[in-house]
C-alpha cells in the first residue's frame, strides 16, 4: 500500500474512533458521570464539569499524539503498523482515562439509601419481534448456505487452496487443503450470524431504566432508542453476514479456478458494511444519545432509578452484576448500547458460548495460517 493511502486510512481510522470516544460524555444519561451515578444535581455541579473537561483535554491530546505517530509510520516508513499502533494507543489511553475519571467520580456519588426502583404499572406492548426474528433467520440461512457451498465444493478443490487475499482481491497466501482450512470461514459466518442476530433480538428485550415522576417521558425515550438500536443491529447483522457469505463463496470459487479474484462485489459490500456500521453508530449517538438521553434531556430533571442508578450493582461502572435481576441486557452507563447482566447465569452462558466459539475459530485460523 502506498504511503499516502496508508496515511489517509490511518487518519480516517483515528478520527472516527477518537470522535466516537469524545462523544461518550456528551451522550450519557443525566446523572451518570463516567460510570457512576452522582445524581442529577451532582451531574450539573462544577466538580463534574471540571472532571469532564479534564477528560476531554486528555483524550484530545491522545488523539493528536496517535495521529502524529501514525503519520510518521505511514509517511516516512510506509509501515502497516500505522494502522495499528495509533488505534492501540487510543484504546489504552481511553481505558486508562476512563478508570481515572471513574475513580474521581466515585467521590462525587451521593451518600444515602439506594435509589428507588420504578416500573410502569400498565402493560406496555413489546417491540415487535418480527424484524429480529427475520434477521436471525436470514443470517442463519446465509451461514448455512456458506457451509453447504464449502462442504459440497470440498472434493473438487485442488490440493492447495487460497487462504488470504490482498486488498485487490487477489490471493496472496495458500495452504494445503484440509477441513479446517476450507470450512473455517463458512463456520465463522454461521457463528457470527447467530451471535449478531441474537444480539439484535436481545436488544429488543433489554432492561429499561426510567426516571421518577416524569409522566412517561423517559419510557417513551427508552422505547424509541431501543427500537432504533434494534433496527441498526439487525442491519449490522445482515450486512456482515452477507459480506462474509459472499467472501466465503468467492474464496471457494477462486480456489476452484472459476475466478481469478474475489470480485468487485466483495469490496462494495465491505465498504457498505463499514459505512453503515460507522455512520449508524454516530447517527444513533447524536440523534438519540445513550438510552434515549438526548430525547429525554428536556425533562431529565427527575431522578434516574432502577439498576442504572444503583451504584451497588456496578463494578467500575462497566459491569452490571445483579443476581436477582432477570434481565439479560442492560444499558451501559458510559458508551453506546448495552452490556450483559453478569449476575444472570443465562446471560453469562450466552456470552461465554458466543465468545468461546469465536475465540476457538480465531485460534484455529491462526493455527492453519
Amino acid at each position, binding site marked *: 500500500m502506498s504511503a499516502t493511502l496508508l496515511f489517509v486510512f490511518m487518519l480516517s481510522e483515528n478520527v472516527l474512533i477518537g470522535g466516537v470516544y469524545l462523544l461518550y460524555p456528551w451522550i450519557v444519561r443525566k446523572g451518570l458521570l463516567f460510570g457512576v451515578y452522582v445524581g442529577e444535581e451532582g451531574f450539573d455541579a462544577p466538580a463534574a464539569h471540571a472532571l469532564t473537561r479534564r477528560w476531554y483535554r486528555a483524550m484530545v491530546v491522545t488523539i493528536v499524539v496517535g495521529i502524529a505517530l501514525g503519520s510518521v509510520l505511514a509517511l516516512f516508513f510506509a509501515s502497516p503498523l500505522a494502522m495499528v499502533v495509533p488505534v492501540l494507543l487510543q484504546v489504552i489511553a481511553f481505558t486508562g482515562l476512563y478508570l481515572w475519571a471513574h475513580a474521581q467520580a466515585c467521590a462525587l456519588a451521593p451518600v444515602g439509601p439506594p435509589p428507588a426502583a420504578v*416500573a410502569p404499572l400498565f402493560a406496555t406492548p413489546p417491540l415487535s419481534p418480527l424484524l429480529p426474528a427475520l434477521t436471525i433467520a436470514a443470517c442463519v440461512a446465509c451461514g448455512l448456505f456458506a457451509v453447504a457451498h464449502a462442504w459440497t465444493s470440498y472434493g473438487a478443490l485442488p490440493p492447495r487452496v487460497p487462504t488470504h487475499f490482498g486488498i485487490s482481491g487477489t490471493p496472496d497466501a495458500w495452504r494445503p487443503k484440509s477441513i479446517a482450512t476450507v470450512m473455517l470461514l463458512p463456520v465463522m459466518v454461521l457463528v457470527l450470524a447467530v451471535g449478531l442476530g441474537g444480539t439484535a433480538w436481545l436488544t429488543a428485550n433489554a432492561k429499561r431504566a426510567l426516571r421518577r415522576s416524569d409522566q412517561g417521558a423517559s419510557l417513551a425515550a427508552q422505547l424509541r432508542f431501543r427500537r432504533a438500536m434494534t433496527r441498526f443491529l439487525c442491519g449490522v447483522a445482515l450486512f456482515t453476514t452477507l459480506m462474509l457469505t459472499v467472501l466465503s463463496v468467492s474464496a471457494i470459487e477462486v480456489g476452484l479456478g472459476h475466478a481469478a479474484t474475489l470480485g468487485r462485489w466483495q469490496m462494495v459490500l465491505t465498504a457498505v458494511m463499514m459505512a453503515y456500521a460507522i455512520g449508524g453508530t454516530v447517527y444513533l449517538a447524536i440523534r438519540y444519545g445513550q438510552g434515549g438521553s438526548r430525547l429525554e434531556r428536556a425533562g431529565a430533571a427527575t431522578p434516574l432509578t432502577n439498576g442504572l442508578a444503583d451504584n451497588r450493582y456496578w463494578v467500575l461502572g462497566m459491569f452490571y452484576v445483579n443476581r*436477582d435481576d432477570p434481565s439479560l441486557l442492560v444499558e451501559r452507563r458510559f458508551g453506546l448500547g448495552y452490556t450483559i447482566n453478569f449476575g444472570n447465569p443465562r446471560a453469562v452462558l450466552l456470552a461465554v458460548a458466543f465468545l468461546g466459539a469465536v475465540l476457538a475459530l480465531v485460534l484455529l485460523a491462526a493455527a492453519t495460517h
Partner: protein
Amino acid sequence: MESDATLTVDWAAAEPVYEQVARQIRVRIAAGELAAGAALPAVRTLASDLGVNLNTVARAYRLLEGQGFVAIRERAGTVVAAPAQAPDPTSLAPLWQELREVLLRLRQAGVAREEISTMVESVVAHAGDGKR
C-alpha cells in the same frame, strides 16, 4: 405514590418488596385507576424493570389473586379482576375482623371518632360504591 402510573419500590422500607408491589397495585385498582380487565405487566417484564427476582413479582401477583384483585391466566398473563357482584359471607368474615382490629388500634392510638369516620367515608367514596 407516583402521580403517573408507575410502581415504586423503596429499598429502605421495612415492608417487603412483594408487599409494596401488591399494595400499590391494590390501591390503584381500588381507586379505579386500573379498570377490570386491564393487563398488568408480565412477571418477567416487571421483575426486570424493578430489578427484583421473578419470584418476588409472582408472589405479589399471587397475593393479589388470593385477595380477589387480579386473575392470573396462563396465556393472557395477569389482568385486573372484575369486582364481585355479591359479597361472599365466608370470605368477608376475616376482612371484617381485620377492619375491626385496625379501627380499635386507631382509637387506641388516640385518633378521634370523627376523623376515623371521615377517613372511612373518603376511602369508600374514592373506591366507588361496590366498584373498584
